């Protein structure tokens, strides 16, 4: 049996040889890694990453089993303040389509993720990047002289909560379908029929919702944040004020005092807040005015009753109708 003698090589050469070995191993590993990555990347579902859960719900409607959808912000979370967790970089890194809500909703957390994701496909200008707000008529766009942080945390491009108008949801669904067709032409017909199905259902539901809410035309309500503008416009509710004195500024005693006075004067019987908001100040105001507080979801998912986009509106409309009914009778 042959045994290699340890003194065969001079010291420095031996060291070199072991380094060579390590380098060789590393390179082979690296090489294999790349091969694995590229071979896996074929023959898989279209991966869609969205910034918020409402967009994810729509993408799910259009893509159904052809896509894998993931939302960065949780449905229960305040969409203005989301943690830019590194794991989202990994998700964005593998996305084929990235849908952003826009109108500066995600400005505080998204940019670092997109830079870190190093995914060429989802950069603005590519088919894999969809700005959902393009094609939407933004409301509450502040006048230039009001575009000042003196007015609180305003959105200079307009109110970003446009998905609370079902018709805007329809527009966005159409755009998602367009993009999916562009990225994955093979399944285009499938996406189109899904879109058709979805819009048909939404149309039906919309008139249902509108007739449900029609007895309460122009009912005066109060909201917490300027979240419900689009919804109120569509269903003709009249938002006469917010609990926040200015966007992003928590309710102050003097503002609440004013608001209570106004609510009593104008007989406002409903306060609508997003479900993640604190309930103390709304309950306080409600106690002083006899109004009812409704904590409603603004994103599909998170709750059993609101798993998809249409369910969410069903839930919202039902809740509002029953709240208004009990208050008016």
């Amino acid at each position, binding site marked *: 049996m042959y045994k290699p003698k340890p003194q065969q090589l001079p010291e420095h050469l031996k060291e070199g040889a072991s380094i*060579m070995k390590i*380098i*060789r191993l590393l*390179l082979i590993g*690296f*090489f294999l*890694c790349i091969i694995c*990555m*590229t071979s896996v990347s074929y023959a898989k579902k279209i991966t869609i990453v969205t910034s918020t859960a409402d967009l994810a719900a729509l993408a799910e409607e259009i893509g159904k089993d052809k896509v894998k959808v993931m939302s960065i912000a*949780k449905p*229960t*979370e*305040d969409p*203005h*303040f989301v*943690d*830019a*967790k*590194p*794991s989202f970089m*990994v998700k964005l*890194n593998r996305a084929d389509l990235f849908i952003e809500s826009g109108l500066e909703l995600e*400005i*505080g957390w998204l*940019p*670092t*993720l997109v830079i*870190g*994701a*190093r995914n*060429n*496909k989802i*950069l*603005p*200008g590519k*088919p*894999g990047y969809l700005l959902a707000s*393009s*094609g939407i*008529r933004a409301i509450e766009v502040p006048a230039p002289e009001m575009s000042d*942080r003196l007015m*609180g*945390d305003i959105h200079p491009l307009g109110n970003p909560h446009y998905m609370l108008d079902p*018709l*805007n949801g329809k*527009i966005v669904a*159409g755009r998602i379908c367009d993009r999916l*067709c*562009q990225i994955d032409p093979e399944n285009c017909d499938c996406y189109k029929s899904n879109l058709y199905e979805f819009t048909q259902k939404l149309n039906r539901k*919309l*008139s249902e919702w*509108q*007739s449900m809410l029609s007895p309460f035309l122009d009912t005066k309500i109060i909201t917490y944040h300027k979240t419900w503008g689009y919804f109120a416009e569509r269903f003709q509710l009249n938002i006469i004020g917010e609990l926040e004195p200015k966007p*992003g*500024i*928590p309710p102050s005693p003097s503002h609440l005092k004013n608001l209570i006075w106004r609510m009593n004067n104008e007989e406002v019987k409903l306060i609508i807040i997003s*479900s*993640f*908001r*604190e309930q103390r100040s709304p309950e306080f105001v409600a106690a002083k005015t006899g109004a009812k507080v409704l904590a409603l979801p603004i994103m599909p998912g998170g709750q059993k009753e609101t798993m998809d986009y249409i369910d969410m509106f069903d839930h919202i409309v039902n809740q509002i109708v029953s709240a208004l009914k009990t208050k008016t009778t």
Partner: protein
Amino acid sequence: MRWLLYLLPIYIFIVQNFVPSVYSEDTSSTGYHNTQPVTTVKGTKETREISMSKGEFTQIMDQLQGMKSLIETMKQDYDIRLNEMQEKIVSLEKEKELLAVKVHQQTSALQEEKTPKAVSIEKETLDEVTKQFAELEDQVKDIETNYGSQLEEMQVKIASTQSTASLTKDTRSPTAPLTLWSSGKNYMNISFDGLFSVGASTDDDVDSLFGGGHDPNQRGFTLQQLETTFEGSVDPYFQGQANILFQIDNEGESFLEVEEAFLTTMSLPLNLQVKAGTFFTEFGRLNETHPHTWDFVDMPLVNNRFLGTDGLRNPGARLSWLAPTENYTELFIAIQDSQGETAHSFRSEEDMFGREAVETDVHNVRDMLYTPRIKTAFELTDEQTLLLGSSASFGPNSTGSDNDTIVYGTDIFWKWKPVNAEAGFPFITWQTEVMGRRFEAGEDEESGLSRDVFHNWGAYSQVNWGFKKRWVAGLRADYVDGLEEVFVEEHEEEHEEEEEEGHHHGGEGSGFERLRLSPNITFYPTEFSKIRLQYNYDNILGDDRTEHSVFVQFEFLLGSHGAHKF
């Protein structure tokens, strides 16, 4: 150089698989509406080359751009109109329904009342109502047809523009080096951040008690920093950022500092990313961040002593790789210059361990500063995230020609935030960094010191609790071990000398062993401002004394708010 051979297959592989794909991506994904361009060209497929001047070409490109935006606006317009139309239809339908109900009620009332009484509603009204109803129906139909034809028109228009656009596009030679969307986002975000503090300490030499370059430097007011940040997309390939700092030292002297200026690549293949320019080394968690994002008024002692008053930063380049694993893992390797006051434990001009700094040059690549780092994240639950990292910096130091320093460290960050947090509150974070330094001190004949190796370590650990919207309470514990006793005194003397000369001294003054506890509370009126109260219990174990300091810090931010890192 045999190992180079092993690189060859990889190189070939990269060239074959990725380079063409990068190019093809650029050319194929230029337009938004390019779903059916191929069919339109196929009929007139010609292989002849079209030569044209660059001017002509750019003109065509511009036209194409214009067309693209036209299509986009048309689409938006059409969407909006569709929206409005829908609205109208829905409201009309509603009216129709209401009317139908009315008519129905009336007629039923009519029928009911027929037998016992005479007809109470005149037939004229009924006629009128039915007439109105018919009119309304007509209107609805009108709108429907109108809208249908408009829609068709629009579609035809879009299709025609699309085909012309794709035709124009396809005349472009694929080898043309110009990219189609060079007129992308060309904006720059500018923001300005002011950070101030006011306070008092039992130690009259606040500047040396707080070693950090942006820490409070005297009793009374300190302008910690005025930072101007510029950032934006350079072009489709690079993202640029620059942080220019103004500061006033305790002598009242203003000075300007380029803290960072670097570009980051946006489209390298293989999950790679390069950062180049002058930047904070990605060492641990705190070093790469700017003072205004810190959770405490001052810099941790260990960062100060090992990485320098202004943090470790220098011109250089950094390559990072996002591993293709399920959880986040990123590898970094930075190569930077190893000299200057921003490379404190390396080739700085300060005397270290009693040895006078000697002039050292860069002879080969080994004389640069290398910083590898690995960072990985775990989503423990929906509400908890854990981040782990390890870093090390290798480089020569200035105590002789062949002496190296290694600063190594590990960091951990944990955050809890409930799924239904409002405005990011409440939350709890825990962050800890432990660092060690191995310092090879060279021989110094003048002071009669021989070659020696010194080991030091230090750590900080901090907890922050956002207990209520806009309110955060924090507690930090700091520890650094002492330098060898004989050098501590020298260190002190040097420091005093420098003070007399009026120099801004770098480095946390004395090399004593120290233990510090800092509770604080911060109020964020909005995310653009903050007010912080902090107390430091500073036990300078090596010198057997205890110092107390209290500070109020305030910050304001103008301009765009940079996105938060995690």
